[in-house]
């Protein structure tokens, strides 16, 4: 088991390395990109460009530049953005993380609670019309593009119905840090939370319902029923826990992906300056240091969470031996 864990973690490091190398190469192959020009300010002379190249080591071979950049991300943590040399990238990402975490944690709380409610309700109401109805509702949540839902939410809460009592409390778009104004932090995040969670409520509700129905076939559940325990008790005390295994592992993967910057579209549509938003800005401006740092941050989370989930599976079921 221990060797398996170590091997898995080593693979994680290797995957991270490969990703950063590929990002590096892609960046320098993209046309229109000249970091020296970005650093040198607007419209510098050729002489200034050359001096910048020498000063920043941009004329060195690519592997050396890669090494220097990795060093400044991990060791020195003084990597400077190409778009604005007054900005240090690593602290910039650290400062953006609370916004992403606020968004993702809140949405996750909502979707876990609602998904459990939906999944349990659908399983309990099996055979009535509510079961397929709930499932179709869940599917609608899964089928709508999240950025469109966000735009429609903005249209309603900021535009058409903004002046009514329903939505007049919605503040202008943007993120307020919790430490600055907790009430505004909360009010500004409610609509983004709901938007982001709609997709996952649908997904997880369906998964949970499926697992509950599957678990209900198991022997231990039949035994509980045979003992005369009520159906509701059977569901809540016996079935639910086992059904949650898939739920929990999927949750780990999705949560990890969102924290890694996967909520990019939601952040952009609602104007929340989190890591996803930073990633998008960096890509639009072709700012390699920020791109690299957000990629490292994001890939690290995803790969780590994947590894944890895989290790968890292997621990739970020794028959499963993912390579």
């Amino acid at each position: 088991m221990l060797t398996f864990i170590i091997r898995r973690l080593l693979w994680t490091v290797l995957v991270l390395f490969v990703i950063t190398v590929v990002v590096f190469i892609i960046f320098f192959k993209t046309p229109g990109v000249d970091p020296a020009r970005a650093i040198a300010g607007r419209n510098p002379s050729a002489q200034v460009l050359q001096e910048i190249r020498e000063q920043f080591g941009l004329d060195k071979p690519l592997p050396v530049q890669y090494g220097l950049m990795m060093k400044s991300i991990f060791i020195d943590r003084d990597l400077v953005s190409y778009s604005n040399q007054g900005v240090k990238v690593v602290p910039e990402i650290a400062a953006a993380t609370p916004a992403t975490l606020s968004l993702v944690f809140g949405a996750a709380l909502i979707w876990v609670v609602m998904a459990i409610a939906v999944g349990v309700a659908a399983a309990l109401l099996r055979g009535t019309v509510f079961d397929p109805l709930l499932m179709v509702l869940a599917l609608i949540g899964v089928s709508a593009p999240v950025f469109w839902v966000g735009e429609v939410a903005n249209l309603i809460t900021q535009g058409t119905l903004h002046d009514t009592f329903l939505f007049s409390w919605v503040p202008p778009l943007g993120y307020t840090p919790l430490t600055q104004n907790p009430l505004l932090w909360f009010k500004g995040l409610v609509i983004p939370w709901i938007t982001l969670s709609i997709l996952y409520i649908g997904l997880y509700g369906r998964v949970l319902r499926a697992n509950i129905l599957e678990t209900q076939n198991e022997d231990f559940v039949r035994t509980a029923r045979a003992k005369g325990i009520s159906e509701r008790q059977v569901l809540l005390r016996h079935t639910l826990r086992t059904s949650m295994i898939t739920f929990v592992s999927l949750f780990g993967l999705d949560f990890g992906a969102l924290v890694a910057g996967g909520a990019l579209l939601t952040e952009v549509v609602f104007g929340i300056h989190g890591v996803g938003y930073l990633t998008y800005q960096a890509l639009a401006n072709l700012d390699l240091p920020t791109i690299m740092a957000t990629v490292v941050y994001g890939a690290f989370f995803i790969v780590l969470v994947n590894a944890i989930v895989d290790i968890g599976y292997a621990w739970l079921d020794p028959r499963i031996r993912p390579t």
Partner: protein
Amino acid sequence: MKLPAARSARLQPRAWRRPRFRHRSGLSAGAAALGALTLILAACSSGSPSSSSSSSASAAAGHKGGTFTILANSAFGVADPAQNYTLQQWQLLIDTHDGLVGFAKVGGVAGSKIVPDLATSIPTPTNGGKTYLFHIRKGIKFSNGQTLKPSDFVRTFERQFTVPGPTSFYSGLIGADKCSTKGCDLSKGVVADDSAYTLTLNLTAPDPELMDQLSLPFAFAVPANTSPKLTGNNVPPGTGPYMWKSYNPNTQAVLVRNPYFHVWNATAQPDGYPNEIIEKFGLQVSDEVRAVQNGQANEVFDGDQIPSDQLSQLNSPKYASQVHVNTLTADWYFALNTRRPPFNNLQARQAINYASNRAALVKIAGGSSLAVPTCQILPPNYPSYTPYCPYTAGPGHNTWTGPDLAKAKQLVQQSGTAGMKVVVNGTNDQVGKALVEQMISDLDAIGYKATPQLLSTSVQYPFVQNSANSGKWNVGWSAWYQDYPAQSDFLNVLLGCGTIHPNSDASPNIAAFCDKSIQSKIDQAETMAATDPAGAATLWTQIDHADTDAAPWVDMYNPKQIDFLSSNVHGYLWNPQWYILIDRLWLS
């Protein structure tokens, strides 16, 4: 006549104003914390808002107070004034720093006049126009308490070269040609005498545009102990009525009053009314407008493009006193790649000029109240401008009335380029994409096969400038706003033979247009400027018309600027160089 080497050096890589990024709503915009509402209502004595340039002391005292909040879609990059080349920061730098001279901080045409600021007067040059002796005012302090001395200017000018950025504005100083980011010795070019309190600038050749160049924030004074290297986002102390308290490009910039400031020339640098100026970054433009409508902020940064659906809202009479529209001395144009077919052919270039539907393009810009169609290079209200438009339907030659498709098709046939493939390059934001699509439609209508090539804003401008890419596009969008009101700023910088730099991302003559006879007229006009300004002005007009006839561009329109302010803002002034004068606004 052959030009002295220094002159052609000045025509060499020269700094120019980059087209301002248009900030669109949508995906290129973001949102940041709008946060707490920070309007502090200040007691304000009754009395009409002062609209003249120098307000009496009592009126000024009465209007002081409050926090003025500006909302901008994005920050302005690194804040070091030796590098920053954005109007966005310049509008703030004119409030925190001063130069030897400056544009008068008043509204209207008087705002194009240059007046002495830290110098006591504007000197007449001696030594054949190569030496300027400035007397520096005494008793002026920086915001950190240091007293301004002439030797501070030495470091200021050196930083133009040791900090990466535009250098050629000041490359006429003696010793500048040896300066680089490694080091700079301007001891012969900038001579400071701290006991006599004078500063002497020695040039390698006469430069009639020197006063304009000294009025740009690059040349605003910073203390002599400022680092020669980039100071990042820390702005060095200045002598203006405000000082930089903080700048975080992800959230906001904050200016507070400079405790050491006193008025020495109210035309050049009057005192400011708000106690604090805050610029917040990262909001979607549509949200900026909504916030100003609700009184939660005072100004939408005038460089942000307001989306169409809110433009129509602003027509409502309730916003009549809050919306100001002003003509800009700027061009929005499509450069035609004269390096290769079809647009190396004059008739093909003229054809698309006849065919281009400028009325539709103006609609994309927001309608005729926001853009004026044009065919020529110089914009209206500019020195040497006389209306000239040969590419219009109908008999007239001065104003564009409509496209002439018949003439255009005829020219295409004559040129022998019919049926050729044309690539139209532009930016991938809303307006950029729409302009490209309209151009494609116009090209297709006269017999070309046009396709789009849309790049993100930060990539597109260097891309079309670099000759290495010239095989990939035929028509490329660009825009140009004046650096200062000089004809050469358009005609020589954008269409001069000397501003074509092969294999460089900084080659502002995007069309790669070089006509020797026009160039010799340009050189002549520049030399004439000092001795015969009127003759030079007439010559520039001829150059403008000759360039228009040669059709290196399809010039589309001259844009207008909207300033949208909240209802409690008064004292609006429009300065042709700096546009809105922020610290001259007062809050009720």
